[in-house]
């Protein structure tokens, strides 16, 4: 049984599914999200802290158990960023950029500090640091920022081509991606690319908080890659292929906390000196063990975060978003600004899946504690009344899945009509663009000498932004203001009813 081939097969499958998840569009995303995402560490953890759900609990427990039994297989089999790096490493070898891996010193203080700092910032109510570093969310952003426009362009080119054969399809639109987000994602992407092309899995073993945490667990895992010091001839073949740079040939030692279980060394070792087998206490202990200390700190921090996340008042204290004067509008199902900003890891799956592209990334709009998190962008589009896809794909519980009928009554914001700018009031002539598209009967028209003046009845408004999008004036005469805590709108029922249509057939015409 060749473990390397199994790893490559599984990781390729998972990565392909990830591409489909982010690039396949609404329905495919809804289908794949509950299959793939419970097995992603950060989304599963956040979901359980926010609202424990059986699927994600099973997912997280599976990850932990697998890590305890087999080590950091997560990093090589399930993590999309790991697979991305593996392909870069493979390309790097093919192109001759990288000839061999060598043993690298662990940057223990750095990696445990990053892990600790990430924990602390999350506990204090800011997802910013976690969002930047979480490998799943970073992969999601990379795929959304660069893969999405590419697939849309290719799709539209196909649509254009088919046109000449009289076959017509609807072309797609590229979601709006602010320059700041493109730049930030590109920066992270380049960083990961360079690190992996030159140093293998350096990101995973130095920066990635998930890698560091799983590294702590894998130190005590049952199955380990063990190097038999007595048999080893120091041929260095294993060290050359070790992407994690964790095999030290001089000390004849494998750093378990950094081994990502790629199994390359198993295949490379001609003498079967390295074996993957259950090992209890077979490894020589280091005298100085920062990893152990880090492990204790990690456990304490995890416990603390669990305690504090449930006590959201403390998290709110340090959350800058709520204090903003006109905070962004958050998607329906996100309950409140505080809930959303404390649960969203900015993976942009909702951005990719949103059919109207109304959910767009933001950089600083939520303040420094909510970097990268997406918002409802009514300059670009509007929220489709008949759609609840964002809640169905969101893995972290930042946007809860709402039944459509419930979603239709969630008021995420409220319209305000600025009569001083409205064409009908200013020019005394018909416009009514807002009323045409309002799905909730918030906008009514009063007939004064055959001109129809808009008025709003905000109890019905759900803040979908269709009116704001349609309004022809600049600046807009009707705008949605966010509800920091989402409310429930009143269901519209027509006051007056027409009599049922007459049954008997009338043969007269009115002319």
């Amino acid at each position, binding site marked *: 049984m060749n473990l390397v081939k199994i790893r490559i097969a599984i990781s390729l499958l998972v990565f392909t599914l990830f591409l489909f998840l982010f690039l396949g569009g609404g329905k495919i995303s809804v289908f794949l999200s509950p299959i793939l995402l419970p097995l992603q560490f950060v989304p599963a953890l956040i979901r359980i802290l926010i609202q424990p759900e059986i699927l994600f609990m099973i997912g997280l427990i599976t990850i932990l158990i697998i890590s305890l039994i087999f080590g950091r297989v997560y990093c090589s089999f399930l993590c999309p960023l790991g697979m991305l790096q593996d392909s870069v490493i493979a390309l790097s070898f093919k192109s001759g950029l990288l000839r061999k891996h060598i043993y690298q010193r662990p940057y223990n203080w750095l990696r445990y500090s990053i892990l600790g700092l990430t924990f602390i910032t999350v506990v204090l109510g800011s997802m910013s640091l976690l969002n930047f570093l979480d490998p799943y969310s970073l992969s999601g952003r990379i795929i959304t920022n660069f893969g999405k426009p590419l697939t849309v362009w290719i799709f539209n080119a196909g*649509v254009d081509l088919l*046109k000449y054969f*009289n076959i*017509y*399809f*609807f*072309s*797609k*639109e590229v979601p709006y991606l602010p320059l700041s987000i493109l730049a930030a994602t590109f920066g992270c992407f380049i960083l990961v690319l360079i690190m992996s092309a030159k140093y293998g899995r350096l990101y995973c073993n130095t920066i990635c908080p998930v890698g560091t945490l799983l590294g702590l667990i894998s130190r005590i895992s049952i199955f380990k890659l063990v190097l038999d010091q007595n048999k080893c001839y120091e041929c260095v073949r294993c060290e050359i292929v070790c992407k994690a740079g964790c095999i030290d040939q001089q000390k004849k030692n494998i750093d378990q906390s950094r081994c990502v279980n790629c199994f390359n060394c198993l295949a490379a070792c001609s003498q079967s000196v390295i074996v993957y087998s259950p090992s209890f206490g077979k490894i020589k202990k280091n005298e100085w063990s920062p990893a152990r200390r880090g492990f204790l700190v990690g456990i304490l921090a995890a416990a603390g975060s669990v305690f504090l996340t449930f006590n959201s008042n403390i998290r709110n204290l340090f959350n800058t978003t709520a204090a903003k004067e006109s905070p962004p509008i958050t998607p329906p199902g996100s309950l409140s600004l505080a809930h959303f900003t404390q649960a969203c890891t900015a993976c942009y799956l909702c951005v990719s899946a949103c*059919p*109207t*592209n109304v959910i767009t990334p933001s950089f600083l709009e939520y303040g420094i504690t909510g970097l990268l998190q997406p918002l409802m962008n009514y300059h670009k*589009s*509007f929220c*489709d*009344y*008949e759609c609840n896809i964002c809640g169905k794909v969101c893995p972290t519980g930042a946007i809860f899945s709402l039944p459509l009928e419930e979603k*239709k009554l969630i008021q995420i914001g409220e319209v305000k009509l600025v009569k001083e700018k409205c*064409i009908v009031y200013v*020019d005394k*002539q*018909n*416009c*009514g*663009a807002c*009323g*045409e*598209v309002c*799905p*909730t*009967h918030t*906008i*009514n*028209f009063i007939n004064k000498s*055959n001109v*129809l003046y*808009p008025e709003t009845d905000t109890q019905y408004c759900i803040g979908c932004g*269709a009116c704001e*999008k*349609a309004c*022809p*004036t600049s600046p807009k005469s009707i705008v949605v203001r966010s509800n920091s805590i989402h409310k429930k709108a009143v*269901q*519209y*029922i*027509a006051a007056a*009813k*027409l009599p049922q*249509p007459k049954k008997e*057939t*009338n*043969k*007269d*015409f*009115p*002319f």
Partner: protein
Amino acid sequence: MTEVQKTDRREFLKKGLSLGLVAGGAVILGKTDFLSAKETVTAMPDLVAVKNAEPDALFKKAISLMGGMGQFVKKGQTVVVKPNIGFPRKPEIGATTNPLLVKTIIEHCYKAGAKKVYVFDNAVLPTSSNARNCYKISGIEDAANAAGGIVAPADDFGYKEVKIPAARILTKTDVHELILNSDVFINVPVLKHHRSAHLSIAMKNLMGIVNNRMEYHLRGLDQCIADFCLYRKPDLNIVDAYRVLMSHGPSGPRDEASLQVELKKTLLLSRDIVAVDAAATKIFGKDPEDIQYIKFGHEQKIGNMNLKELKIVTYAM
């Protein structure tokens, strides 16, 4: 010609009377199709109104009273049929043109020898997902496909700027290429209530063939609607008043309980877009004088809103 000269007045009366009897009898028996070819000899009516049947039967009757589809579509021509597909609503709501009517029209176009029949509309909120929903949910995409129509998304074609020198406001606008390139343009609006323009009928339906409909809203909705008709009048306007949305237009209410739809089972045909709007307004139960864009259209001599001055053929089944 000599034949006509030979016939004296008495014979003419006799023939006319007998023809009338035959026609009347046929009408009573419900077999009128064989007459329709002869009726084309006389001048085409300005407006045809038919009621009390299903949309396909209404159209068949109405077009025969108009002189048949051959009057409008010649062999080898490309036709564009422009229904109202502005909102993602089911046909029962009455916010979009009846799919069966669209299907029947396309079939007649092909029977008359049309080479290609295109169907499109530019949805009110033209994001691609919304436009796709409009085509699908309205039932028009499936109906048109079934008849062999080429259903094209509005954004699959470009828009070209056209000048309208006689316009009062809308002196230029960008028009969909299908309209510019097709030989025959058939406008198939649905008659419905409109909260912010009173009614949406044939003239207003043409907002779906320009690129920037919001320009109309910004610069004066009623005047722009009228101005555009100066550029190109449809070759035929077919107003669907089968299922008429009486309130909460143009999109209809979202809860079915508030739906106010009247089954008027009526169809109007005319070359005159102003006349057909005026007639449809009366069918709805309003006064054309109250609809600003109809008045503008009459003033600008786009058509005639004084129905009394027109040759109208009505037929109730």
